[in-house]
């Protein structure tokens, strides 16, 4: 079985979010990048588990610039066999998906894994787009995936509950909490990652369909109004008459 895992970078979850250049660019000064949590904790680890029990290989793909190689090495340290970096800035989900789909078409994979969403752009876009470009089924927000030959049984989050679906390989799946348990890379993995193949390829021609024109920050909250713990009636009164939410 051949598995492809889409790995993107994301700012560390404690990063201060600020913008520069007239609010047109994310301010990267002092920002630490990590592997997008959904990609690392769920997509990658489930692919590795399947490979360990069924045999095969796990390749990661990242659309990004050379600075992304540290997070790619992290994915290799956790256990991916080899990595591909498409040498381009990923500014648009369609462009990104197109690059991944081109690589997947040329190399043939049984399952393409993505994360549920990137925690910086929160688009939940790339996985579904890749599926459409490959003309394959797309199972979104999977919380469990078992593979039996070419047939997969997948639990996915659906409005009001969990659906159990069956789908045949090849397909694309986006991974949410529950798929696997986070793995911490060990020293051997980190050493091995240094020499694992990281192939750099140039992007295929494709236009961006969207761009972020400007960014803004939420308005600062006005100060918290404190109510004494022995005066809950006052809180209820405020919620009813002042905030008008109950």
């Amino acid at each position: 079985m051949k598995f492809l895992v889409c790995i993107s970078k994301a700012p560390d979850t404690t990063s201060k979010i600020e913008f520069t250049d007239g609010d047109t660019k994310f301010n990267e000064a002092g920002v630490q990048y990590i592997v997008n949590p959904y990609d690392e904790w769920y997509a990658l680890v489930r692919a590795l588990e399947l490979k360990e029990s069924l045999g095969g290989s796990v390749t990661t793909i990242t659309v990004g610039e050379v600075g992304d190689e540290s997070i790619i090495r992290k994915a290799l340290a956790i256990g991916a066999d080899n990595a591909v970096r498409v040498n381009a800035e990923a500014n648009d989900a369609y462009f990104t998906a197109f690059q991944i789909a081109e690589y997947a078409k040329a190399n043939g994979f049984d399952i393409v894994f993505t994360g549920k969403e990137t925690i910086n752009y929160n688009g939940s876009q790339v996985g579904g787009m890749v599926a459409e470009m490959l003309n394959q089924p797309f199972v979104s927000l999977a919380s469990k995936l078992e593979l039996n030959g070419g047939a997969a049984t997948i639990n996915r989050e659906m409005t009001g509950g969990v659906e159990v679906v069956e789908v045949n390989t090849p397909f694309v799946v986006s991974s949410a909490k529950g798929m696997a348990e986070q793995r911490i890379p060990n020293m051997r993995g980190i050493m091995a990652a240094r020499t694992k193949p990281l192939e750099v390829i140039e992007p295929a021609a494709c236009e961006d369909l969207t761009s972020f024109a400007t960014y803004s920050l939420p308005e600062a909250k006005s100060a918290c109004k404190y109510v004494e713990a022995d005066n809950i009636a006052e809180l209820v009164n405020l919620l009813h008459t002042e905030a008008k939410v109950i």
Partner: protein
Amino acid sequence: MSVLVYIDTLNGSVAKNAMEAVNYGSKIGSTTVVTNGSISEEDLAALGNVGATKVLVNRAVTTNDASQITNIVAAAADSCGASTIVFSQDLTGRAVAPRLSAKLKAGLASGAIALPSADGSVKVNVFSGKAFGNVSFNSDKKIISLTPNSIQIEETGGSAAVEEFNADAGSASLTVKDVQKQEGDVLLPEAELVVSAGRGLKGPENWGMVEDLAKTLGAATACSRPVADIGWRPHHEHVGQTGVAIRPNLYIAAGISGAIQHLAGVNGSKVIVVINTDPEAPFFKAADYGIVGDAFEVLPKLKEEIEKLKAQN
């Protein structure tokens, strides 16, 4: 301008977030709605009241198959000449909108929280609600998927014409074997009131008071991530940067410290009430109303006082 809105009605009713999407579309242009499954004609005609002029319903596709739904929506967009297609950023929207974007080569702005501005750009949530971005489109056709609870529905008092829509959906790409319904009456992502608790509650046996308060209010229940990780509460209740992002009118947080990753998923709430024994808890900085106190005492009292209020009204 012609607008098409896809809504998920597979569970047999029209959810509030679906009505929001229809109403949103109707403020952009003349709105046709497309849906699939076995929803009643009356319920669909009633969408006229939130701005739909016409509703197309495909009865053949009765499962949540993203590739079949994509084909239906694409055919509907074609038949009504829609230049903007709107989804709700719910679980179905997340599966179908990107497929459709790739199929039509139409840019997708996901997680919109406001109507398009004069220049056509759309304000969306980014950085898990810590900031906003304005997405501009480089494509003629546009797809917008709307964050639940981000617009106020305005009723228009109309009724929509309902038509059967028999577009070719293609063959099924997956089979649905089983559906495990979520417990609890109010679904978290679309709830207007949410009662949430964290590690300060000490153990799952203490959640009775959280549930009691939620029931009294008609609220959904939620929790912090560690609480779901240790298994005190089900995963689908976990809110935050790596859980569900919510925008209720009221978010009550008891025994939650207010870590930045937790705030990311809840700071779109209109009003936040924080109950914490520690006056230094970071959550108070994001709160509208704060009580420095013991959740074990405050939650039951709060329930009592709300019961009194309800009895008066």
